[in-house]
């Protein structure tokens, strides 16, 4: 039987663990620390240029623009020192720019994918070209960002896009058996217009709940058990804290863009069928000529692999490649193994095509 002294000590240690657990859950981790400069803004959208760390003669001339989804914060690409894709790439001589779409307000409920892809994105690219002095550029689109960059690449093939990287790109919605979101957004069950009537934009909390509902036990229970079990490991706690900070920083999605996503993409699968019209122009994927790398997360339950495969047969790019990585939708770029798998592959692929 344990002595009262020992029980007291253990009780104190347990209290300490509980305090740490509570602190991690209730505070924000310091994230997005790589030095950057705001170079352009329009409405809520901001373009940042990351401060180069290598001298000009050791840098690639062709800039790289990072485009993330419109309903999450883009600093997942620069999560924390030592686990930052941005930090990794600027350390290898890339001139990196990040497009932050910002948080749409009620006044932005009419913004469509057309506006993001063909009003804001081209303007940001124009500014990036002016600053970098390069007429050609590379662009990385992740998740919904991949939809926007694909639309841009198809409608502006002669605008200087040399290299297009698509990460976990939700482009093909034909395989409904494997795309859970396609089932949930079926027109028989999901009346999104009621949500948009009520809120204008699609609330970030609802989008987050939807994503978490794909794996409810993992996201609502196991995730917290993992934190509790590893409270004595500062590295794990720090990583968990940073990721949780990002996950809980939800932003809404512009109503009209959400409507397009559900109707045109999830229900009609218009993009991969070359039937999507943007700014009265038909998005013809065969017009994409840029070098293409599509990265597929084999354990992705948000964007299953089947959604990212068909693009390779649709584009006219001569240089195209698919890279499959074990991991989830976010984990392949922000997880602990990303610096050993995804990042080096992207860096090697891009560096060979950035001279």
């Amino acid at each position, binding site marked *: 039987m344990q002595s009262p002294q020992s029980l007291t000590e253990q009780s*104190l240690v347990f209290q300490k663990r509980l305090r740490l657990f509570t602190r991690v859950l209730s505070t924000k981790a310091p994230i997005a620390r790589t030095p950057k400069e705001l170079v352009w803004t329009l409405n809520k959208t901001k373009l940042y240029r990351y401060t180069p760390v290598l001298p000009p003669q050791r840098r690639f001339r062709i800039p790289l623009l990072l485009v993330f989804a419109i309903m999450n914060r883009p600093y997942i690409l620069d999560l924390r020192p030592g686990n930052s894709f941005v930090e990794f790439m600027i350390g290898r001589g890339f001139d990196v720019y990040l497009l932050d779409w910002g948080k749409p307000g009620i006044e932005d409920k009419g913004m469509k994918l057309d506006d993001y892809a063909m009003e804001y994105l081209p303007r940001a690219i124009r500014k990036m070209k002016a600053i970098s002095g390069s007429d050609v550029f590379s662009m990385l689109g992740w998740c919904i960002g991949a939809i926007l960059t694909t639309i841009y690449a198809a409608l502006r093939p002669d605008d200087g896009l040399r290299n297009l990287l698509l990460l976990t790109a939700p482009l093909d919605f034909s395989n409904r058996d494997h795309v859970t979101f396609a089932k949930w957004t079926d027109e028989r*069950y999901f*009346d999104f217009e*009621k949500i948009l009537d009520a809120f204008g934009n699609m609330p970030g909390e609802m989008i987050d709940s939807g994503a978490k509902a794909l794996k409810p036990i993992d996201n609502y229970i196991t995730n917290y058990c993992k934190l509790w079990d590893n409270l004595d490991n500062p590295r794990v706690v720090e990583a968990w804290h940073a990721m949780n900070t990002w996950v809980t920083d939800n932003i809404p999605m512009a109503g009209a863009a959400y409507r397009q996503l559900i109707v045109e993409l999830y229900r009609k699968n218009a993009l991969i069928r070359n039937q999507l019209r943007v700014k009265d122009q038909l998005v013809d994927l065969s017009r994409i000529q840029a070098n293409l790398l599509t990265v597929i997360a084999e354990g992705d339950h948000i964007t299953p692999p089947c959604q990212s495969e068909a693009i390779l047969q649709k584009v006219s790019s001569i240089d195209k490649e698919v890279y499959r990585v074990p991991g989830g939708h976010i984990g392949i770029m922000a997880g602990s193994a990303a610096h050993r798998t995804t990042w080096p592959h992207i860096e090697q692929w891009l560096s060979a095509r950035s001279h």
Partner: protein
Amino acid sequence: MPEVKNENAKVFDPFESLRGLRDSYLDAMSKTMVEAVNTESYAQATGAMLDYCLSASAPFRDALEKSMAQALQQLSLPSRQEVAALAERFTNVEMRLDDLDAKVDRLLSAMATLKQDQDAKAEPKRARQAKKRG
């Protein structure tokens, strides 16, 4: 308060003895739930629940919106729609400024190119003049 003498000693964890059981249970539940949420009946059920919540709350939202609009009007304060409309106009102004910025950039670039061409043309003439003087 007594100090903790040895933090490396076994820590009291209420889950320790049940950890293995917990993990197995969660793993099994996770697989079951992933299959469950991927069914048409789940999609139908959540859709119905969402529809019910939104339909039930709609009259209250409408009433609140109307009374808020009236209150703001009486207080001579702008409504959310009015502020949003103003913000939209600001965005249009920003876009026009951005277009102007692009034109200025193009003009500056064209002027720089012109100056370079002129300098390139003037260089042989300057060289000949320098030779004459020399």
